[in-house]
């Protein structure tokens, strides 16, 4: 059984966001890049499934669409424990083209399970995983908070409003995962870091893919007015303001 984890390369979550060229481009100067937090959790869970001897997972690979500068992020995934990394050499233009590139690889190199994080913390698209499922004509389960094997089938939990559903699914499958899938992302061990360069990082040429959407410009949110400070001894004042000023009660 083989698991493929889709990885996106995003600015560290503490980054102060800035734009350049009249707000049409993200200013990445001085930005530290990380594995998208949800993807990192997905990778962690994939590795847990592989390490559990009861399962027959024999490969966990990661795939990413991006330029050579993102190899550092892929090697981090290898250091954490992925067996192989694949980078499709293309600028990730929109979710449709990224999913199309990954699907093209999958058609040549089949995997049984594909994990994708619920969204990326930069452009906040949330579509790549489900798009891959459609390109591949695979089943898909979204909002997944837990995955385990039951024989050759998978038992997944999907978050729904006010609760969760227990789902049984056959492979091949795309699982779009969210928080809960693994407790914490893994910290790479020293040996893992030293072995990362020895593991395969395959660079594949991109296929021709149409781009359907494009980013036009960015905008920073307007600064909020000053916070009105109220007396802890007179909370009824707050209620009054919530009712009559903010009109939210």
């Amino acid at each position, binding site marked *: 059984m083989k698991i493929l984890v889709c990885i996106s390369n995003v600015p560290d979550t503490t980054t102060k966001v800035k734009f350049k060229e009249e707000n049409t481009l993200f200013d990445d100067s001085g930005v530290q890049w990380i594995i998208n937090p949800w993807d990192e959790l997905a990778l962690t869970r994939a590795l847990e499934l592989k390490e559990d001897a009861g399962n027959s997972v024999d490969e966990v690979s990661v795939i990413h669409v991006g330029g050579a500068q993102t190899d550092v992020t892929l090697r981090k995934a290898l250091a954490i424990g992925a067996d192989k990394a694949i980078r499709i050499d293309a600028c990730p233009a929109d979710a449709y083209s990224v999913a199309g590139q990954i699907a093209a690889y999958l058609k040549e190199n089949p995997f049984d399970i594909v994990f994708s994080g*619920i969204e990326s913390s930069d452009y906040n698209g949330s579509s790549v995983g*489900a798009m891959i499922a459609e390109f591949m004509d695979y089943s*898909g389960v979204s909002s997944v908070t837990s995955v385990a094997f039951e024989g050759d089938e998978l038992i997944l939990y999907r*978050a729904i409003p006010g*609760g969760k559903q227990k789902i049984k699914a056959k492979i091949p*499958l795309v699982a779009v995962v969210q928080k809960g899938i693994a407790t914490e992302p893994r910290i790479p061990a020293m040996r893992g870091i030293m072995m990362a360069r020895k593991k395969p990082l395959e660079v594949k040429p991109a296929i021709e893919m149409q781009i359907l*959407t494009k*980013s036009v410009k*960015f905008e920073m949110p307007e600064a909020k007015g000053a916070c009105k400070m109220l007396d802890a001894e007179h909370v009824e004042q*707050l209620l009054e303001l919530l009712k009559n000023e903010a009109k939210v009660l």
Partner: protein
Amino acid sequence: MSVIAFAKNWNGKFKNSSYELVSYTKNLASQLNTKFIIVSIGEVKEEELKSLGKYGAERIISVNNSQMNTLTSRVYAQVISELAEKEGASTIIMSDNESGKAIAPRISVKMKAGMVAAVLELPITINPFVVKKGAFSGKAFEYVQIDSPVKVITIAKNCFGLKENQVDVSIEEYAPQLDASLFKIQVLEEEKQTNRMDLADADIVVSAGRGMRSPDNWGIVEELAAVLGAATACSRPVSDEGWRGHEEHVGQTGKVIAPNLYFAAGISGAIQHVAGISRSKCIVAINTDPEAPIFGVANYGIIGDVMDVLPKLTKAISNSK
């Protein structure tokens, strides 16, 4: 050319987000100077379908099929795409929730339609078709242009609001031809926390952080939430420590929410937390530390111990009822 919107139901009932979807779609259709159709999938009673008319849904296509009560994204996507093609729809809309996230991307691929998720307003321009969405987890906004003839968007909760506009409703039934091989996933059981308000749907959220000092103190958070009819939430350290379940974690890597009113009790307001609540209409912060960054994003602030302030608030609200 028309607009088609998929209104999700939960056990045969619509929610405010479904009505907001209808309001948004009606306004988008008039912006595009065209008609719109609302699609419902799964068993929904006629009366419930008609409730969509309050927000302007004149024409509803209902796939009243019990086999489709639970979400199977492949099946839903196929049905909606079929209808979109049949009706010549150029824009397909759904809510940005667990079903929209699963279905919209599939429709995008099926119809080679550019897709944007979690749109915040009506399109800024329709030719070219440009929509506004959040980026960098609420730290910025992005304008995205969709260039394909068919467009798919999902709309963020509370982005548009409810606009009443009572009309007469016509309901058509549609029975798609479905291949059994599409149903490869099977829902075995469903666990619901019935007495709990869901975070994503709640208009009011009472959220608490490490300032609570111990999980044993959460009673006062729940009491305040109960008198307000609010959902409870928490900050990341609290969920990481296991004081509360991760389904309550609000923030950049947890849930991103947009309630009307958000109480941040004993939450310092780390940048990642703020990213998850910045679309709230009104934020109230309660913290002992007057320098806590949460006051920088709050509309109202109280400097004080949550253990003392929360019970006072609960009492004041009960008294005012």
